[in-house]
């Protein structure tokens, strides 16, 4: 796309003057397609002396890539190398500072780890957790988003009184808090581990969350 523009004015061969500069740029009869990058120039090769015939009999048009294009923007999935490989190419791998926290869920046999840096909001985290543990929840529609539901005061009380699950986390000070209390980034920085507990067990964590609902 950009290449046609770039090369329109520059007919010179790399490293040397171009012949026939007065001659207009000639596109051959091939189907035009705006994204093609090659031009067909009508010119005579400068160093034809080596070949016996100086007049190019069979084909006077040559495709030439006259100027290397500007650096291309990165495209999704190109080059087609699996992400897995991309990370380790270049020798020793330096893992970025990931915010890995353990996630446990009451009643589930497996412990999980999540990288909080992979999410940008409570909603995303909630969806991911729901996917991870959905087989264990009792009829909970994972897509609902536990966190946003939590924000509604009335719903909160119902949730805490029921046997449904509530996400809580341990912060830097060792206190257990309800997820959703603080702005997302603050949560990411202070969360040490996550625990998805039964609503009834989480009642003690409620007051702060209730206050936040009232104030917001």
């Amino acid at each position, binding site marked *: 796309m950009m290449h046609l523009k770039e090369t329109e004015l520059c007919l010179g061969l790399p490293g040397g003057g171009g012949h026939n500069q007065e001659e207009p740029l000639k596109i051959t009869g091939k189907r035009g*397609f705006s994204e093609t990058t*090659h031009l067909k120039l009508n010119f005579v090769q400068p160093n034809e002396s080596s070949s016996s015939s100086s007049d190019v009999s069979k084909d006077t048009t040559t*495709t030439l*890539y006259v100027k290397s294009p500007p650096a291309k923007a990165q495209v999704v999935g190109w080059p087609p190398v699996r992400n*897995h490989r991309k990370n*380790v190419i270049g020798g020793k791998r330096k893992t970025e500072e990931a915010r890995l926290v353990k996630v446990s869920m009451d009643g589930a046999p*497996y412990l999980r780890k999540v990288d909080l840096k992979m999410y940008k909001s409570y909603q995303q985290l909630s969806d991911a957790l729901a996917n991870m543990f959905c087989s264990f929840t009792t009829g909970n529609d994972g897509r609902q988003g536990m966190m946003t539901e939590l924000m509604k005061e009335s719903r909160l009380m119902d949730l805490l009184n029921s046997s449904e699950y509530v996400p809580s986390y341990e912060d830097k000070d060792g206190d257990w808090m309800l997820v959703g209390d603080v702005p997302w980034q603050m949560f990411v920085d202070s969360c040490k581990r996550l625990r998805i507990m039964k609503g009834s067990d989480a009642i003690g964590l409620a007051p702060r969350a209730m206050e936040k609902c009232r104030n917001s």
Partner: protein
Amino acid sequence: MTDDRSEMSEDDAGDGTAARSRNSAAGDYFIPYPDQVLENVLENVLVFLKSRRDRNAVSLVCKSWYRAEAYTRSDVFIGNCYAVAPRRVTQRFRRVRSVTIKGRPRFADFGLVPRDWGAHFSPWVSTMAIAYRSLEKIHLKRMSVTDDDLAVIAHSFPTFKELILVCCEGFGTSGLAVVVSDCRRLRVLELIEDDVSDDEVDWISCFPVDIPTNLESLTFDCVESPINFDSLEKLVARSPFLKKLRLNRYISIAQLYRLIIRAPQLTHLGTGSFSPPEQQQQQQQQQNDNNRDSDFVSAFAACRGIVCLSGFREISPEYLPAIVPVCANLTSLNLSYANIDAEQLKPVIHLRELRVFPIDATENAEVPVSDVGLLAISLGCRKLRSILYFCQQMTNAAVIAMSKNCPDLVVFRLCIIDRYRPDHVTGEPMDEGFGAIVKNCKKLTRLAVSGLLTDRAFSYIGQYGKLVRTLSVAFNGESDIGLKYILEGCTNLQKLEIRDSPFGDSALWSGLHHFYNMRFVWMSSCRVTRQGCTNVARQLPRLVVEVFRGDGVEGGERGDFVDTLYMYRSLDGPRADAPHYVNIL
């Protein structure tokens, strides 16, 4: 021969029939009706028929043959998990020992498919848990597998022997722990390029202790979590049948040494990091070098049977000479994770398969001339059957030379990373190079093209690529005619994946006669419109036509065109588990 079986490539560089399969015979069974003696005889014959293509042909002869074939098929291959419902499979094939299922489209590997698109293994495993109590092998590629699914496997199939997961995700080390502890007959556990979550479970210690295992193959190089080396060492020591061992990068070269001296019978080795652990590097380097080198050389020399070497995840090149003793026998060497240059790799190898990956996989990187490299490979490896080659630039001459020097090529995948790149010497499109490949490599079944191509390249492929089953096109093409050539000419085409190419509705329409013969068609960032896709969907009711955006945003379109079109035949209609952003027309 390489491990195409493990990677579940259908373009076997070897012969097509699965002679390597270890099926038991159909076994004893009760014949209710004496009239069916003929069917009985047929069944006894069919037991020996392994090739699924032959079996498919047999099943079409008549109802009686259909029944006999269904009764004796023990290996079921499902190329697209959405082409057929699990129940339909279990009702037709009653005595299955091995199941292979493929899920997501291949471009999902490169981030072109949103994460939750589908391909769930759960409905399959729950159906099979009831229907196939004698199931022994499960091979999955690009499926979503949960820890629960793994638990179901471990608890439903008492004679389960072989689990191979390629490019799968959704499970973690906790699921692995259940499998290795409860599948008492486990022979093969291969985890290849999976995304395995680290649940901090020491799964390697969960193999039953103090008794010899049946393990023949253990691959876990993609598992990105530390391994309890002590348990691993003891495991290897009590696995007398172990032939294939592929370690992850947490295994240092010293640990590798300790493992291979216990397993000189290995034929396939993935070396782990192939470097010393960081602490050791500075201190002990000088002192122990000489001792260690000779130890390594002798350790490797003792593994006389190694034919396939891979790994080298964090290679320290000074240790490379240790592998020299095994190089003469190698038929496969995979250095794709190794950051070394040609100088460091001098031993000559008689290769059947070669994969060269870019060290710096960005588009604008400066690289030395790679057409020379391709030419050198073609001269050195005349028996080459399969090549995947990444480069920044290429010439027609080198590709033409390869087509002449390596006429046995079955798989030719050339990826010129710099998009739209013509021949860097002549400035011409790469048409003639790829044309030569399809013309001269008469066994070619899989082709991936790149660089600057005009319609002419596609006319060559349509004209000569009669055996081509898989074709990948990216940032190529000139007009609709190119795709028409393909769809009209490649009579054996089964899998077509195209991205960022100027093919539109009229080109798509020209494939109507063939789409039912194909496993799938993928077109992303091309010029097909929603209307064009709808027209196709209307004409072909058994075709599931999915339209979606690669970024998971609703709608499916980007401007005037569909972002991604993914269509495939299905016996059971559109799937019920499609996420909200997938439109099924």
